[in-house]
């Protein structure tokens, strides 16, 4: 690296020698070094207002939060060259209404070494793989931050401990990642909106691999620009970043007697990890203790009330972290102003919503184009059209199995850099629609104001939990017994969206950047 390059990196030089003056006086020769230093970040004040009352009693109608995140980056000069970089990026959200959204994370805390054709790194990092815009199927290195919006579309990710190596060759770039410790996803709490009726039992997380979260995960990717094409091939072997879910019965909210009964049943069926038929005696015990609830069932009281009373307290979803291999390809083709993109994966093993295990393929492909000077103005419009496909159809664990995404991005190119975005996700077979309309303004060089409205449209008449309960209500489940399989048999991803149809919300965000 040449001398001038080093100078260029000195965006914000300061002199460590001053800091180390005391040491320098003691140690001879005096220590002195220079540091290239950069800091970026934002403070965001945001509120969400939900237009309808939540399906579940505990849910709030708005959130009011503050997000702080920053990234500090330094390159110390060591023996005359800048070959080392240190990154530290903390994140913190505090929500005064929905306390389950309050959380912090170390997004990045890493040290990197830069060589001419090789880079090595270690620490908590974030890695992006992918080329499409509305979903990144190949982007599997970091787990999603389940408490931050947009995670399902590859948005905010958790930091993850890893060692990595990057090789730069004339035939492309090769990335290698070793991840010794897995991080479980966090789930929205009972107060939170935009959740399924079922509670998530994070404590009941199951791993397919015996090493649980200490399994060594491996990722490797090759990318290269070949003419107008950019191609990538990746392979990942390890723990599923987006868990599938196993319905479980939980003891929380039960009386002491019921918990004792539960423990006995658990003991009896300990060979069966899901302990499926345990539900009946638990329910019997529950109704024995709460006869009015039983009368409510027999008297045909609204199922929603019942769900608040009983069943949603008993059935929960436990995350199941499978171990699998996934091969992915990425292609971007730039031609005549258009960009065509494709991401496709083949996963050696996956569990669908009904609990069937097996290999499957999924893909996203799309087209992106921009128009400048719209209607003789300075407006720019970008259009992204992407199609999502999942071999498993509507029992895929993803909402997008046969869906079309349309994104319109309009930039007015005015002083406040006004941007308007309209995003539509249309399920072509199930009929559900997700719509997002947003706009943002730069108030000055540091402050930015954004408004966002998100709406869910679904033909499903009742939410998932009610659907499941209705299924149960028609049965004499005291005699026939009830297992979690019956929950699963009624699942498809259209029902999942049905749970969101009363979750339309407006978000206002004021951000300060540095």
């Amino acid at each position, binding site marked *: *690296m040449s001398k001038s*390059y080093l100078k260029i990196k000195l965006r914000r030089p300061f002199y460590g020698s001053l800091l180390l003056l005391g040491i320098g006086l003691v140690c001879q020769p005096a220590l002195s070094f220079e540091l290239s230093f950069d800091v970026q970040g934002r403070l965001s004040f945001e509120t969400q207002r939900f237009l309808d009352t939540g399906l579940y009693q505990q849910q709030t109608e708005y959130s009011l939060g503050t997000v702080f995140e920053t990234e500090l980056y330094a390159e110390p000069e060591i023996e005359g060259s800048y070959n080392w970089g240190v990154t530290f990026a903390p994140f913190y959200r505090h929500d005064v209404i929905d306390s389950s959204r309050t959380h912090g994370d170390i997004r990045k805390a890493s040290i990197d070494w830069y060589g001419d054709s090789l880079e090595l790194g270690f620490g908590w990092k974030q890695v992006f793989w992918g080329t499409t815009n509305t979903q990144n199927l190949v982007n599997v290195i970091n787990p999603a931050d389940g408490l931050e919006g947009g995670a399902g579309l590859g948005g905010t990710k958790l930091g993850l401990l890893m060692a990595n190596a990057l090789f730069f060759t004339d035939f492309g770039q090769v990335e290698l990642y070793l991840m010794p410790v897995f991080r479980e996803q966090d789930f929205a709490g009972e107060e939170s909106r935009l959740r399924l009726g079922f509670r998530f039992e994070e404590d009941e997380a199951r791993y397919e691999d015996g090493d649980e979260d200490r399994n060594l995960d491996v990722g490797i990717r090759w990318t290269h*620009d070949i003419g107008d094409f950019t191609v990538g091939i990746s392979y990942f072997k390890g723990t599923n970043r987006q868990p599938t879910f196993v319905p479980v019965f939980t003891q929380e909210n039960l009386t002491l007697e019921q918990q004792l009964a539960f423990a006995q049943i658990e003991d009896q069926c300990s060979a069966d990890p899901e302990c499926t038929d345990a539900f009946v005696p638990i329910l019997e015990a529950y109704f024995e203790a709460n006869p009015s609830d039983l009368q409510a069932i027999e008297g045909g009281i609204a199922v929603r009330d019942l769900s608040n009373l009983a069943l949603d307290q008993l059935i929960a979803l436990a995350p199941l972290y499978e171990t699998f291999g996934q091969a992915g390809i990425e292609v971007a083709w730039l031609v005549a102003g258009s960009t065509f993109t494709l991401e496709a994966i083949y996963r050696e093993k996956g569990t669908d919503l009904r609990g069937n295990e097996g290999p499957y393929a999924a893909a996203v492909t799309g087209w992106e184009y921009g128009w400048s000077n719209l209607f003789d103005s300075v407006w720019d419009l970008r259009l992204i059209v992407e199609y999502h496909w999942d071999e498993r159809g509507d029992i895929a664990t993803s909402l997008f199995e046969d869906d079309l995404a349309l994104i319109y991005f309009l930039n007015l190119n005015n002083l406040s850099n006004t941007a308007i975005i309209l995003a539509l996700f249309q399920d072509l077979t199930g009929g559900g629609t997700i719509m997002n309309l947003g706009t943002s303004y730069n108030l000055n060089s540091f402050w930015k104001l954004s408004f966002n409205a998100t709406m869910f449209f679904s033909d499903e008449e009742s939410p998932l939990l009610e659907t499941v309960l209705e299924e149960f209500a028609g049965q004499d489940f005291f005699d026939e017994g009830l297992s979690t399989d019956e929950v699963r048999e009624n699942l498809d991803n259209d029902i999942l969206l049905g749970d969101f149809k009363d979750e339309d919300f407006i978000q206002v965000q004021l951000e300060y950047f540095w």
Partner: protein
Amino acid sequence: MKKLISIVAAGALLISASPYANVDESPEARGRSLMERLDARDTDFDDAETIQLMILRNRQGAESRKKMKTFSKMEENGDVKSLIIFQEPADTKGTALLQHGYDDANKDDDMWLFLPALGKTKRISGSAQSGSFMGSEFSYEDLSMQGNIDEADYKWLGEEVIDGVTYDIVEAYPHDTSTGYSKRKLWINEELERMKKMEFYDRKKTLLKTMYLEDYQDFGDGNVRPMKILMVNAQTGKETEMLNEYWKFDEGIDDKMFNKSQLKRLAR
């Protein structure tokens, strides 16, 4: 296609190798020769670095600021590489645009955009030339106007005396249909070897914008640059002032600065 970020990288500057033109030249030949010498001189550096502040004003006089740092490097084969690191507004901080411009007129530029929020390096299409650069009155093509000399025909219109200084007026008629302009008109001070202003005419042949180049400074080795460029839109009344904080030339910028795999590191 060499779409050199010329105001950024080379400056809209004329240094004539033969300052006194042949009076027998046809208007077309004289126009072309002026532009050829400009083109040759534009590329007379190895590398350059600058910080630019853009002040955008609307008709009412309200302002907003954009700031960026730019590195450029001329390759021996005539290709140009440039890296723009955005600094202001602060929400664009950490965003970087890398451009490889090719001397071969048939080859499109390669461009990559680094988006720090995702950590994504996105290869983008370089064809949206006539769009506004960061909301300013400069379009992408304005920033690369002195690109390939063969991309337009030229005609010398005559001389004009402004404030006692004589300027040659040259018109340029682009071949490329993707440009937003039907013609450009340049005022060139041949003696002082500088461009004073340039007018841009839209597709309907109406005056669209005028660019004024001011406050020329000499950085040695033939590197003379305007420190202030004002672009005034005649149709909307909006204007953009581009101020260079400094210029550095031939500092020996490492090739690694222009490697797409380094964008994440360089943008910080």
